[in-house]
């Protein structure tokens, strides 16, 4: 069931992925021109790793474009099956609905990984095409903090990967669950839009809510200790920010992921998979 559903998903979603890649490419180009404004001192050169990590933490991308784009890729992976009646062919070959649901959950995990690496590659390529140097002083809070504390870019990529993929995995499960509850993938977008508004308010108006906004968890530069460094050690850091670490976010996102997985499974376990509820 898993290999079948993976093949079917990528076959049916080729156009969607092509659109997603184009959007990510355009996003990467736009970010090349704007990310530096927030942290780069006047007259200093943007480096490749600063560009990549600042892009991966840029609120416009992480709060708006990435969540909607990923939702577009996976929200209908179950509803499409039963809207078209294809689910008859699948369930008549399956021993239980959990098997079917798990195969979709695995698709979400695989696609969240692919999405991250495609985005990373696009950022890298855009950086190379624009001739952004890979060497030089780092000014972005994530890269400078990690490098100055003896870490490497590889450490930063691992941290970023964990945050990004866990967030996408959650958004995927959430989208599928919401679309199952309402029998339409459109409702997933509405739910994601709610999260975007909450994330926007958190990031731009009230940083004390950072630990509670699902989308803000994906912004690495807002985590402790990067956030602290980003303020040039000048501001007193509130307790809520101090506990907003990478580890906290991964646990928080994983818990939400588990909850939405359970809700999704409970829903699909008994629902009508042909007739609209």
């Amino acid at each position, binding site marked *: *069931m898993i290999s*079948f559903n993976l*093949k079917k998903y990528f076959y049916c979603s080729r156009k969607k992925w092509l659109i997603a890649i184009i959007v990510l490419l355009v996003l990467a180009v736009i970010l090349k021109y704007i990310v530096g404004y927030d942290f780069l001192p006047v007259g200093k050169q943007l480096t490749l790793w600063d560009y990549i990590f600042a892009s991966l933490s840029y609120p416009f991308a992480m709060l708006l474009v990435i969540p909607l784009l990923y939702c577009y890729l996976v929200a209908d992976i179950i509803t499409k099956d039963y809207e078209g009646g294809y689910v*008859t062919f699948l369930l*008549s070959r399956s021993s239980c609905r*959990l098997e079917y649901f798990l195969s979709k959950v695995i698709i979400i995990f695989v696609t969240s990984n692919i999405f991250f690496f495609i985005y990373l590659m696009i950022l890298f390529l855009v950086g190379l095409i624009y001739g952004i140097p890979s060497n030089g002083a780092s000014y972005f809070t994530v890269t400078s903090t990690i490098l100055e504390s003896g870490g490497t870019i590889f450490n930063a990529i691992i941290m970023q990967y964990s945050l990004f993929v866990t967030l996408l995995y959650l958004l995927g499960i959430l989208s599928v669950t919401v679309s199952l509850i309402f029998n339409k993938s459109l409702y997933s977008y509405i739910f994601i839009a709610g999260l975007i508004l909450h994330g926007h308010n958190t990031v731009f108006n009230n940083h004390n809510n950072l630990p509670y906004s699902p989308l803000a968890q994906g912004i690495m530069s807002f985590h402790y200790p990067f956030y602290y460094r980003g303020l040039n050690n000048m501001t007193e850091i509130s307790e809520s920010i101090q506990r907003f670490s990478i580890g906290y976010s991964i646990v928080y996102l994983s818990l939400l992921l588990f909850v939405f997985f359970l809700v999704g499974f409970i829903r699909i*376990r*008994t629902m009508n*998979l042909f007739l609209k509820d």
Partner: protein
Amino acid sequence: MRKDENILVIKGLEKSFKGQLILQDVNLSISKGEIVGIVGSNGSGKTTLLKLILGLSYPEKGDIMVRGKRVFPGLLGDLPTRVGALIENPTFLPQFSGIKNLTMLASIRKEIGKSDIENAMKEMGLDPNNKKAVSKYSLGMRQRLGIAQAIMEKPELVLFDEPTNGLDSDGVELFSKVVNRMKAEGVSFIIVSHRKDEIDSLCDTIYKIENRGLHKVNEYPASFKENVE
């Protein structure tokens, strides 16, 4: 499974949809190699009954047992096994050929090989070497492919909903041959159809869904039987 053993047993089945009772106190037993036909007016619940047997939906009351296994939500959302089905219009992956579609579906259970798939297609008069995409198939060809996918994995129970929809006379003849061949091998069928001739020539027992219940047609007066469509 013994020859006289029932492959499907339905007891006291009840199903509502959007607050409206569709099926009530439905009872049905099908033994190995038996072909049951179900007729009824539009919206009477014929297709719903097939969906319930397949586990696409679960009943509010009553039991469905397929090959001795209960079809109910349970812990994991249990589904019947060794059941083939063609319910309503078959939807395939449109850009793939017929054989590619069936090969992909067969990869879920991994129980049959390429030759079994080809044989099922040939039996329904389809050329396995035809590379034409399913999107370019006629309604009749798609229906033949739908029948082939339902029978290719040698199921013990096959559910057909209006199986001859869109089939020409050759297609109907091939379908009848397939059903009779499989019946001789002990495969049971439920065929939902509006076509009286199909029901008469193929089925051992005919039921009609009326007033939410399932009634044996040969228990009705002859004048009623004449009017069954």
